[in-house]
Structures are given as structure tokens and as C-alpha cells.
């Protein structure tokens, strides 16, 4: 039987938190920061367990302890808080602890303007793990993503035994829309399948998918060793033994090796187009409108909305290789995603429509396409 429509006015924060919990996240550590405060507020109502931390370093440390103990923790922050978390995110990455960090971007640098949106943190995310390793970064582009992609973030964190960043912006998490909540896709709950064999448990011994099986600290069956330092498969600190370095190399490859399982994007192909618009996050809606208008005007344009930003899915390269001109729409001054994909010296066929202090509008994009 079809559900009767239930159209409501809701902000994106509510959808994100509801989805994260339905997907299996069970604990939230919060520290107030604009524009992520609505996420914190909803989390305090919805998560099975919620604690207010005294700062963002503590936030990530508590989350790591919770995760090592077998829980699925979440936090929500913005750049100033995230900057404090970075060493601990590196730790969680090295320890291979599943968790989700919702990063709501705002205008920087530094404290910038807390109530103004931005897309300025992608370069930081690309280089935040010492050694250049990458953790999965998924980016919400619309209200449907608030539900589906949030759940995917939990699923990916569990499946890859890794921290995942769910990237969004002030203009997403603090904006309200009418939606039919009965039309939202049902969410599958992700559970951590812990190591269950009688054989000795080796915490960092990975299978073919390069993901080591998880077992929580404190279990009664096997000793569990978890460490942030360079370590062998047993989780024992090593200087630079062959086994320990092999473990770090595995860690480097893990996110990319499993990338197909969490590659998400929308591709609107216009068969005769020689221009491709690429966008993500809060700029994607303007890109959709601009491309629709351009196509109505007879100017054929294809559109790629990237939802898995990092590591960069190879399919993006395949798509982009088909176009003579590529226009990146991202709300920053320096074409951050374009530079991640094409390097510091952008080729002449790569263009950027950027902005700070206000969202990129459809007309900003349309003017470039005409």
C-alpha cells in the first residue's frame, strides 16, 4: 500500500541526524559551533547516547575510544573545530576506527563568518592525513542526499573500518525545505560484523579487500591491540619494519581499493554537449538550474554532480575526458576540486565559477555557459 504523502517543512540537519541514527550510528559527541548547532541539537534528542565534550580534541578522542569499544560515533563541526580535530582524525585513521564526522563549511579564514556558507575546506581534507593518505569524503548536494548519503557514510565507515567525513555547508544544514517524508528512501542499518573465529585475532591482518576485521576492546575472547603509531599486524608499535610499513601501505590503498563501493555521483549526459559542468555540495542546485536553462536555450551542456569527492573516483576522469570544456562550480576563490583533479596550473579548458560570501547563482553559471 502506498504511503499517504506527508509534506513537511524541515531543515537538512534533522534529515542528516535521523538518517545517521537509522543507519546504525549510536553515539554523538558534541561541541557547539555554528553552523553545526542544529545537528548537535537534533543529535541530543535522537542518538541513543550523547555527550557534550569540553573541546574538539576531546570530541575526537572520546569518539575514538567509543569506536574502539565497538560503538559507532558521530560528531558535527565546522572548520575551527575540525582544525583542532585533525591530529586525532589522523589517529582514528591509523587505528582504523569507524566513525562519521559531519563537517558543515562556513566562510573562513579562521573564524571568518560563522553564519555564512562556503565550500572552502576541500583542499584541507585532501591533504589532512600525514603521508598524503586519503579517507572517504562524501558531500551532500540536496535534501535526498541528507538521507541517503548520510546512511552511506555510516555504511562506508563500517565497511572500510575508517573515519568518514560527510561534507556539507551552512546553506544546507540551516536551510529548510518542503519535503514529503513518506517519499524518503528506506535506510538500511549497518552493523559491525566483528571477528568471530576461535583462531587468534590479529587486529590489522587484512583480507583481499585490504580491510582488517574489527573486534572491540574488552571482548572476552581475544586480546585486541589498537595503536596510532606505526605498527605490525598485531598492533604492536614498530619503527619501520617490513611488516609495519606494509601495513601503512595497505592503509594507503584501502580507501581507493574499495572506492567503487562508495562512489556516488549524478551524471546528466547531453549527447551532443562539448561542455561539462562539474559541481558538488551547495552549488549543485544552481548548476542543475543553469544547465536546464542552457539546454532549453539550445546550448547543450552535460552536468556531473560529484558526491564522492575523495578519493577521486576514476570514473570522473573517464567522464571528463569526453569534453572540450569543463566548468567547475564551487563556492571558493581557488577552484579547490578542479585543482585536486587537474593540478595547480589548470589547463586552459578548465574554468572555474567561484564565489565567497554568497552562493553561486544559476545566472552566474549561465552567463559563463552562454
Amino acid at each position, binding site marked *: 500500500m502506498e504511503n499517504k*504523502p*506527508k*509534506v*513537511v*517543512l524541515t531543515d537538512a540537519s534533522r534529515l542528516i541526524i*535521523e538518517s545517521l*541514527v537509522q543507519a546504525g550510528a549510536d*553515539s554523538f559527541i558534541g561541541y557547539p559551533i*555554528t553552523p553545526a548547532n542544529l545537528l548537535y541539537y*537534533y543529535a541530543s*534528542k*535522537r*542518538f541513543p*547516547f550523547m555527550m557534550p565534550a*569540553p573541546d574538539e*580534541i*576531546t570530541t575526537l*578522542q*572520546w569518539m*575514538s*575510544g*567509543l*569506536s*574502539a*569499544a565497538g*560503538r559507532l*560515533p558521530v560528531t558535527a563541526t565546522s572548520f575551527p573545530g575540525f582544525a583542532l580535530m585533525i591530529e*586525532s582524525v589522523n*589517529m582514528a585513521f591509523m*587505528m582504523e576506527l569507524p566513525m562519521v564526522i559531519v563537517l558543515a563549511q562556513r566562510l573562513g579564514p579562521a573564524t571568518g563568518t*560563522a*553564519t555564512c556558507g562556503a565550500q572552502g575546506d576541500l583542499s584541507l581534507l585532501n591533504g589532512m592525513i600525514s603521508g598524503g593518505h586519503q579517507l572517504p569524503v562524501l558531500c551532500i548536494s*540536496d535534501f535526498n542526499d541528507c538521507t541517503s548519503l548520510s546512511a552511506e557514510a555510516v555504511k562506508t565507515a563500517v565497511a572500510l573500518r575508517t573515519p568518514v567525513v560527510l561534507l556539507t555547508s551552512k*546553506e544546507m544544514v540551516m*536551510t*529548510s*525545505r*518542503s519535503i514529503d*517524508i513518506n517519499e524518503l528512501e528506506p535506510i538500511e542499518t549497518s552493523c559491525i560484523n566483528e571477528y568471530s573465529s576461535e583462531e587468534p585475532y590479529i587486529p590489522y591482518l587484512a583480507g583481499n579487500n585490504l580491510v582488517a576485521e574489527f573486534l572491540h*576492546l*574488552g*571482548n*572476552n*575472547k581475544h*586480546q*585486541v*591491540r*589498537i*595503536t*596510532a*603509531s606505526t605498527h605490525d599486524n598485531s*598492533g*604492536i*608499535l614498530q619503527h619501520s619494519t617490513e611488516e609495519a610499513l606494509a601495513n601503512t601501505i595497505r592503509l594507503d590503498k584501502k580507501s581507493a581499493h574499495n572506492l567503487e563501493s562508495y562512489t556516488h555521483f549524478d551524471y546528466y549526459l547531453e549527447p551532443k554537449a562539448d561542455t561539462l559542468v562539474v559541481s558538488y555540495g551547495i552549488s549543485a*542546485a*544552481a548548476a542543475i*538550474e543553469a544547465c536546464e536553462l542552457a539546454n532549453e536555450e539550445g546550448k547543450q551542456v552535460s552536468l556531473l554532480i560529484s558526491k564522492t569527492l575523495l578519493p577521486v573516483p576514476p570514473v570522473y576522469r573517464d567522464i571528463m575526458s569526453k569534453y572540450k570544456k569543463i566548468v567547475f562550480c564551487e563556492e571558493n576563490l581557488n577552484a579547490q576540486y578542479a585543482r585536486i583533479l587537474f593540478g595547480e596550473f589548470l589547463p586552459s579548458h578548465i574554468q572555474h565559477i567561484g564565489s565567497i560570501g*554568497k*552562493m553561486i*547563482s544559476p545566472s552566474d553559471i549561465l552567463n559563463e555557459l552562454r
Partner: protein
Amino acid sequence: MSSFLNSEHLPFCKGCGHDLIAKHTSAALENMGLKPLDVIIVTDIGCHGIIDASFKTHTLHGLHGRSVALGTGVALGKKEDYKKVIVFIGDGGVTIGLQHLLEASRLNIDMTIIIHNNFLYGMTGGQTSGLTPVGFNTTTSPSGNTFAQYDICELAHKAGAAYTSRFVGIGNFTDKLEEAFRVKGCSIVEIFEVCTGYGVKFNPGRKLREIVENSGKNDIVLKNERPSFEAIFKSETSSLFSDFKDTEIKEETSLNEPVRLILSGSAGEGVQSAASILAKLAIQAGYNVTQKGSYPVTVGVGFSTSEIIISPDEIHYHGTTIPDIVIITSTDGLKHNLKKIKSIQAGLLLIDTSLQAPETKANVKHMDFRSYGDKYAALAALMYFAKETRIITVEAVENAIKSSRSAEKFPFEKVKNDFNK
């Protein structure tokens, strides 16, 4: 051999106090009848941290100075409540991670923190820490430390830890550790040692007991009778969607095109709430709606603007470059929207009578929004908006206000009477 250690030869310099702490920890746990997998040892960076490879317990080895916070996370999340969490940390680690220690004390987290206080940063070359006694020589203070020393036990006690103790790490201190381990809540033990690598070298001939006595840190045991923090994972919480009531949606809409509207006034005057009422009424009228708020960081000061799009069709981009309708209830709102008002090509500006409208192609109508009081200007503006545009009905706005917190004091009749002026 100890059932908790996998070797009698631990990875420390000869004579290092860390060796004794590990062995007495092990002995105390044995005395308590615990098994290795009943214990989770959390360490961090510093010489003490290399012990985790020697323990047969669960081990977690984190960042410098963060083992207390990391251990707190484990204590909060542990699935087997009776498991014992023991945190090892050095005096340098306590210095950088002092907040974590105070937080664990304040919350009275159920774990034991053992501070290996050898008066300096041993792993990095013997630098002064926040727990270095005055007069003690280190690599960075070879003529004696001149900086005051934290009294970490007093701090933790005052912050609320159930149990704090300190003593010189010489002789058999198994019983003292066992006493701390048996505490339900946060127990903190500070053990004084001398780093054999740097402490002895820079302080030749000085005895540990003498250094401790001179620093005024006599043996103490401090207690707070407080319940231990209990982490409760609720088995069920209500869906965030359960807040939404069923509302009847009218299918007949009068708009063929989207209307981009700005409602703007001063922070603290209910602009966002009024905008939310309008957005919900537009949904009930069968439209798609977006509501984008804009305001300064400070609460209750400056402008407060809400951009609302009401559309018969799906809305993607929710920004407003050129508005169709602007409603201004105060000077703050006017200043913030001057550029957009000037950009209107064919639209409507409803503006408070106290304000001068800027040059615009909009149809300008002055209305006395503020005469109803600062708190009701935005709501009154909604009623005028309904009357002028008929996108939603005045009756619907009136009913919505009657269901809001402003129901009692809002001057409904006065507003409706003023419609005809």
C-alpha cells in the same frame, strides 16, 4: 611470571620507575582476581607508552597527552561494564592534556589514571613539564626549574575525582594501586620517579624522596563520595519525524511561477519564526517551499532576514538574487537588503511607515508594522502580505498565529481594522 605481563624484562632503561609501575599494576590486578582480558590498558606517547606491547590485556595506544580522553571514550562505550580501564600517562602528557584529566574527574569516569611523574619529558630529551618541581634541573632548565608546579592531585580532587593519591614509586606499592583500582569512579594515582636518562644526569647525587619532600608533595589520599558516571545507551529514541503533525494539503494553487520573497527586520523580533509560519502555510496551500535564514553571528543583535521561495514546481537553487516581494519591518532589515530592493524590476515592497523606501521599480506600500510592537511587527507583516498577495489567506495566517506562542497578545482585531485605513 605475571599472568598480565608477557616478559619479566620490560622495555625501559635500567632503574626506570616505569618498570616498577608496570609490575605492581600487574600484581594488583592479579590480587583482584582479574584476568588479562578483563582489563583495557590505554597508553599514549612517552616512555611509559611502550609498555603496552608487554601487557597481555587489551591495549590502546594513542596520541601524546590524550590517553585520558581516549580512555574516557572506552569507559563510556565499553560493552562489558565490569571491564577495568587503566590509563597510563606521563607528566608531560598530563601537561598537554590537563583538560582531559579535569573532565574525567568532573564526570567521575569509571577508570584509573596512573601518572608516571618523572619530572620531565623523557622521550624527547628531558625538557621541563608542568609537573617538574621548582629547582629540579632539566635539559631546558639546567640551573633549576623556575616555573611553578601543578598540584595535580589537588586539581583532580577539586574537579571531583572519586579518589586521588600520590606517593614515591619506591618499594612495594601494589596495595596502593589495588586500592585505586577498586574505586568505582575516577581514581588518579600520581607516582614520583626520577628519569634515569635525564633526571639523574642533570641532578647528580639528589635522592627522589628528597626532591619530592622539597617540592612539598607529601603522600596523600583524597576522596570524594560521588557516584560514578553511568553511560546509558537508550534502546529506543523517537524518530525526529514524529514531531511532524499531519496537515491537510490543498491541491489548488494560484501561482504559476515561483515567488521569491524576502522578510527582513531586526534580530530578536521573530522574523525567522514568522517566515517559518509563512513557509508552512505555503506548504499547506500546496506549494513547494524553501526557507533560507541569514543573520549575524551574535544572537539578538542586527538584521534578521529570511528568504522564502514559494513555487508550484520543484525548487533547486534556494537563493534569491532578485526578489519578487520584499517585506521590511525595521531599519536593520532595510540596510541589509538595500541592494536587493533596488534590483527589483517588477515586484512589491511592503515597508514600515517609519522607513524611507529606496529608489526601486517595485510597487511600494508603506504599512505600520511596528505600531503593533517590536515583537509582533513580523507577524503583522505576514497578515498584510496575505491581504496584499492572496498567495495564502489572512484567515490561515490568523489561525497559525493563534496556534503560536504569540496567540494571547497578538492584536488580531487591530491589524484587521487597520487593513481598511
